[in-house]
């Protein structure tokens, strides 16, 4: 990824002739480098995955999880949640479809928690920008948060807090159209995926890079450390709270995380912020409100917020 750094240096310091180490040139350099790097990686990854079509359809996941016991379905739900893409508009039909197939509420919730947090696109981008270590930590804790959140909701037996109409819906037999065949078809499909996914994500990513660039250039590390550093015992719950109303997808958070870690903020605090922004968000809550009574929505948010906070503290203590 050296080439993107060189290009950004060349453009900002050479062509534009800005002096190094000023807030503006620092922010601009970060912005140019990350736009090049992240969009290049995104297009590459989406194309390759589209070509091999490793993506699972939610309809298939529903079949796999239906009628299994919890020992199988809980780990399977978080695992499949990580590899199944669906747009947030689909979370309502998905929720109803899962329950209708007899999949327990807790398992369905576990799937809904993990799916936005972990996906193969974010994983590849995390590895190439933040390294393997952070990626493994992020993925493992994401799976654990999904599992714990689902298990707690399962234990509490909150089925009566699901909207009544949900239980009355009957789902038709799924007749899934077939996937692409042959090289040409696959190439076309992959290109189509690039168009669709980049089209959906680019704005989040640009905003994320903008925030990252601003943090990088204009926010002094000492100031950030004073508020969110290890000295502040409430930094972790605070980042979780800040993250709840904010929404971005995992990919868009990468540049922000990159800038915060570079400033020296503790890994657990940054992790908590990222998970809170990605997994807990107003649009998602409004979507889920259509199928959950408010009591269950409150439980859902609380369980997630608490487990993300614990994860944050844990990693601050370890690293």
């Amino acid at each position, binding site marked *: 990824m050296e080439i993107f750094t060189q290009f950004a240096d060349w453009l900002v310091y050479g062509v534009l002739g800005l002096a190094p180490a000023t807030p503006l040139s620092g922010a601009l350099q970060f912005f140019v480098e990350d736009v090049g790097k992240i969009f290049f990686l995104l297009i590459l990854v989406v194309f390759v995955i589209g070509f091999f079509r490793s993506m699972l*359809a*939610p*309809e298939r996941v*529903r079949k796999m999880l239906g009628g299994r016991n919890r020992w199988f379905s809980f780990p399977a739900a978080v695992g499949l949640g990580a590899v199944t893409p*669906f*747009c*947030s*508009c*689909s979370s*309502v*039909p*998905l929720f*109803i*479809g899962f329950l*209708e197939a007899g999949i327990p509420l807790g398992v369905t919730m576990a799937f809904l928690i993990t799916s936005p947090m972990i996906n193969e696109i974010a994983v590849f981008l995390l590895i190439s920008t933040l390294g393997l270590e952070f990626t493994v930590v992020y993925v493992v804790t994401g799976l654990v948060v999904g599992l714990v959140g689902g298990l707690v909701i399962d234990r509490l037996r909150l089925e009566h807090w699901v909207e009544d*109409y949900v239980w*009355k*819906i*009957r*789902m*038709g*037999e*799924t*007749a*899934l*159209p077939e996937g692409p065949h042959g090289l040409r078809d696959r190439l*076309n*499909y992959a290109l*189509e995926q690039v168009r*669709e996914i980049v089209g959906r994500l680019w704005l989040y990513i640009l905003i994320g890079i903008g925030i990252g660039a601003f943090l990088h250039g204009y926010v002094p590390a000492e100031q950030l450390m004073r508020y969110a550093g290890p000295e502040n015992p409430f930094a972790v719950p605070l980042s979780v709270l800040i993250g709840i109303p904010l929404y971005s997808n995992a990919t868009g958070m990468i540049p922000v995380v990159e800038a915060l870690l570079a400033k020296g903020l503790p890994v657990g605090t940054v992790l908590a912020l990222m998970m809170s922004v990605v997994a807990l968000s107003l649009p998602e809550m409004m*979507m889920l409100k*259509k199928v959950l009574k408010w009591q269950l929505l409150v439980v859902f948010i609380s369980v997630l917020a608490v487990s993300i906070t614990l994860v944050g503290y844990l990693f601050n203590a370890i690293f």
Partner: protein
Amino acid sequence: MEIKVLGGCCGNCDTVMKMVADKAAALGVEISLEKVTDMAAILGYGVMSTPGVVIDGKVVHAGGIPKPSQVEVWLKG
């Protein structure tokens, strides 16, 4: 030909509606186009990931925007 586009909120569904309408007009195929947003109805078709496309009561597509060439095949068939 009776075509229904299944989907709730996201812009994708409108994109599909427009795609089908434009293609049909270009090919001169007579269709009735309808958008289905009712969850019970969408799930009734066995579709969980939207947008989905139903032609004469049969699900031909689910989960994403179909390819233009695909739409052409449906309309000609």
